[in-house]
């Protein structure tokens, strides 16, 4: 039995190499419907992907993209409809079935065994007999070469960066002879450079005749990598368009169902006095190296300070230092003239500083997954009420307000947040932080994984706060957005500040150079 499957997939690869399948339908979904209780996640969806093409799947948060892909990879089973693989009706009951049909999926949240090495993860669960380490390494490096990947086979997954983990995931599917590759938001956590590397690999796979489905919320990526785009809206497949004949505006309209302005406004700053002053701050990581190295900056009321920098340049430590979550090595943090170093996180919150950090894995970011929205709202506010009993009413009102204001897709405010789609979970978190009426709002990567419409809603919300004289520290990845939204851009590189730029005048290239440390201003202490 295992033998026959192996031979089959080997045949397929050779067929692929000849390019014989190119242009033929790899997968065709016909009228796929999936319900979770009362939620219809997928409503009679049609979708086709061919060999030798990249299909982008586009849709707002909660429109059912992940659900649909999970049915192709055997995680869920459709309630209605048929899936054709290579023109034949297929029943995909488990990931094994999907694998045997040559379908491989890279999930929104990686599925790797942390304590295993890259190599062990790659061969995990394959049916052939155990290879010796040397042979295996050769086989892996062969694949790496033909697709332009880089990997350290012995490295354990928990020591890897996100992008390395993704490489392992890709190798995992390539090793199994995958011809149909599904990637669920692979770029959400990658730096632009890493994204380019990934796209190179995808192009190589496409050349070799693979069919690729990619989910991403970044429209410029859709335009860059895909051949066709299928758009989902509220669980229905709306349209499929050729990428060549479309642009960001058309795609957004199809996705949202109405015209959306992709402009960000920038109200002027009226205040002179700083609300927060950071002086010669140094923070060390647990391993003793400096995460933040002697930085000084200030931010005024009603100002948005954009922080740019390659991931891991000290952004996280900066957030946590201000929020009181991290031990400070040297320096001072003055909030309204008062040094807040040594205060507990609770005291700092009470002073009006709110911090929200969306980590790379996007899980565990200050919400309790098994609690519903109301309870998650109360996590931050239950201390306010008097007496030993909690008052749910304000929290319920807040939850309802957020659902309406941010367009959170949820069956109800009593549904555990873990059941919401990735993007919607994030909206719950951000909404709560913004609604706590802070004077200083620190937000890191707030639009990671958010659809374009929600991203703009978030930008508007930040601007609204700005107009209320709230100071905002905005740590972002997308330089275009940073330049459009912020008043001042502070660039971090290896824990040091390489420059302050006036966002109204600076160019993207300039910021990029400061980010790599190629440029550096003498920063006044």
């Amino acid at each position: 039995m295992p033998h026959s499957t192996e031979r089959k997939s080997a045949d397929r690869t050779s067929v692929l190499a000849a390019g014989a399948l190119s242009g033929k339908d790899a997968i065709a979904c016909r009228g796929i419907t999936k319900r979770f209780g009362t939620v219809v996640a997928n409503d009679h969806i049609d979708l086709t992907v061919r060999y030798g093409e990249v299909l982008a799947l586009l849709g707002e948060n909660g429109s059912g993209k992940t659900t649909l892909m999970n049915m192709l990879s055997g995680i869920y089973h459709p309630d209605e409809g048929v899936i054709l693989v290579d023109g034949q009706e297929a029943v995909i009951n488990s990931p094994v079935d999907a694998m045997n049909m040559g379908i491989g999926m890279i999930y929104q949240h990686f599925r790797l065994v942390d304590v295993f090495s890259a190599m062990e993860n790659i061969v995990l669960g394959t049916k052939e007999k155990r290879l010796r380490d040397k042979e295996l390494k050769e086989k892996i490096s062969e694949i790496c070469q033909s697709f332009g990947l880089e990997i350290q086979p012995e490295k354990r997954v928990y020591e890897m960066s996100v992008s390395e983990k993704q490489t392992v995931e890709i190798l995992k599917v390539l090793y199994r002879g995958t011809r149909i590759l599904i990637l669920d938001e692979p770029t959400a956590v990658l730096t632009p450079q890493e994204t380019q590397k990934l796209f190179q690999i995808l192009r190589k796979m496409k050349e070799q005749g693979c069919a690729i489905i990619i989910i991403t919320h970044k429209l410029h990526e859709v335009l860059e990598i895909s051949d066709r785009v299928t758009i989902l809206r509220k669980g229905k497949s709306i349209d499929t368009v050729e990428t060549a004949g479309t642009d960001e505006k058309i795609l957004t309209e199809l996705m949202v169902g109405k015209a959306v302005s992709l402009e960000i406004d920038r109200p002027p700053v009226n205040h002179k006095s700083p609300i927060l002053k950071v002086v010669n701050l140094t923070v060390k990581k647990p391993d003793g190296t400096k995460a933040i190295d002697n930085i000084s900056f200030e931010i005024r009321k009603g100002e948005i300070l954009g922080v740019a920098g390659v991931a891991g340049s000290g952004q996280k430590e900066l957030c946590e230092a201000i929020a009181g979550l991290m031990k400070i090595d040297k320096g001072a943090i003055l909030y309204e003239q008062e040094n807040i170093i040594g205060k507990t996180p609770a005291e700092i919150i009470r002073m009006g500083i709110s911090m929200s950090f969306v980590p790379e894995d996007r899980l565990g970011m200050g919400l309790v997954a098994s609690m519903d929205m109301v309870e998650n709202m109360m996590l931050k506010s239950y201390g306010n009420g008097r007496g030993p009993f909690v008052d749910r009413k304000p929290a319920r009102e807040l939850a309802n307000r957020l659902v309406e204001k941010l367009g959170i897709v949820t069956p109800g405010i009593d549904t555990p947040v873990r059941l919401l789609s990735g993007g919607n979970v994030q909206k719950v978190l951000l909404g709560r932080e913004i609604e706590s009426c802070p004077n200083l709002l620190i937000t890191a990567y707030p639009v990671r994984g958010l659809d374009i419409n929600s991203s703009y809603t978030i930008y508007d919300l930040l601007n609204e706060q700005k107009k209320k004289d709230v100071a905002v520290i905005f740590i972002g990845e997308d330089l275009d957005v940073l330049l459009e939204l912020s008043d001042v851009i502070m660039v971090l590189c290896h824990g040091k500040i390489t420059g302050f730029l006036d966002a109204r005048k600076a160019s993207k290239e300039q910021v990029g150079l400061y980010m790599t440390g190629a440029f550096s201003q003498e920063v006044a202490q």
Partner: protein
Amino acid sequence: MDLLIRFVAAAVAAGTPLLYGTLGEIMTEKAGHLNLGVEGMMSVGACAGFLAGYYTDSFALALLAAFGAAAASALIYGVLTVTLMANQNVTGLTLTIFGIGLSNFIGILALGRSESGTLKLPEGITAQMRGAGIPGLRDIPVAGPLLFSYNAFVYIGIVIAVLLFLYFGRTKSGLNLQAVGHNPGAADAAGIQVTRYKYASILIGGGICGIGGAYCAMIINGGVWVSNNVGGLGWIAVALVIFANWKPLNAIGGSLVFGALRILKFYVPKSVLPLPNAFYDMMPFLITALILVVTSMRKKQNLSLPGNLGNHYFREER
């Protein structure tokens, strides 16, 4: 010297049931399932092994019965926690209560049917078990009594430990099992039959515990049936798993140490060190607590600890 040899031999004898319990629980926990029913499964194994030995007079059949019956009791746990996704702690505790009760109940029934009013294993099987020290080697001075004088249970236990070590460390299937215990979602996506692995490890783990139970019933009390013959050893085994850091070979040393602690009170004269017996009984647990403190102070990732221990897995859940 002689006293020391006797002490070591006694420690081995006291540690052997612990070794089985620990190995069985390691096997179970490697699949990510915390089974607190070790005490219960050992009791079931004790009863089945003893009675099979009593009626058939065959050591092999006694072992088989102990393994099978305990595995069957583990199946209850498996169905509840794997398929029905019940809470593992509650299910395990219940299994303990159930197992002890069932074992005592059947024991009393059997006692009632026997004419003498006691149950004592027949001569044949006693000889098979006792005489199992390795002839020839047994008589070498010092090394003989230290290494080659034990009953068959001891050697079988060590063989199982070595086999488990090889299985976890050297085989593909062992790697798959550990993947299931660490991250069932990843294992599932990689094409591993998660449910099948979980059941297999729970059943085999339960069976191994059962043999440890048989030791309690058949050896400790000189081949005479008494109620509650496992007497809390199952709980110490659960702690020993942590002490052994989920490694089968460590379990051998660990059970020897804990076995020694259990009998220490008989070897330290009260005139030298006037400590109450309860102090010695407390030691295994105190040491486990200390080990826990030490291991959690080390910052490094613990590779042996199954990362997903205690959580159920349902593919469609998120």
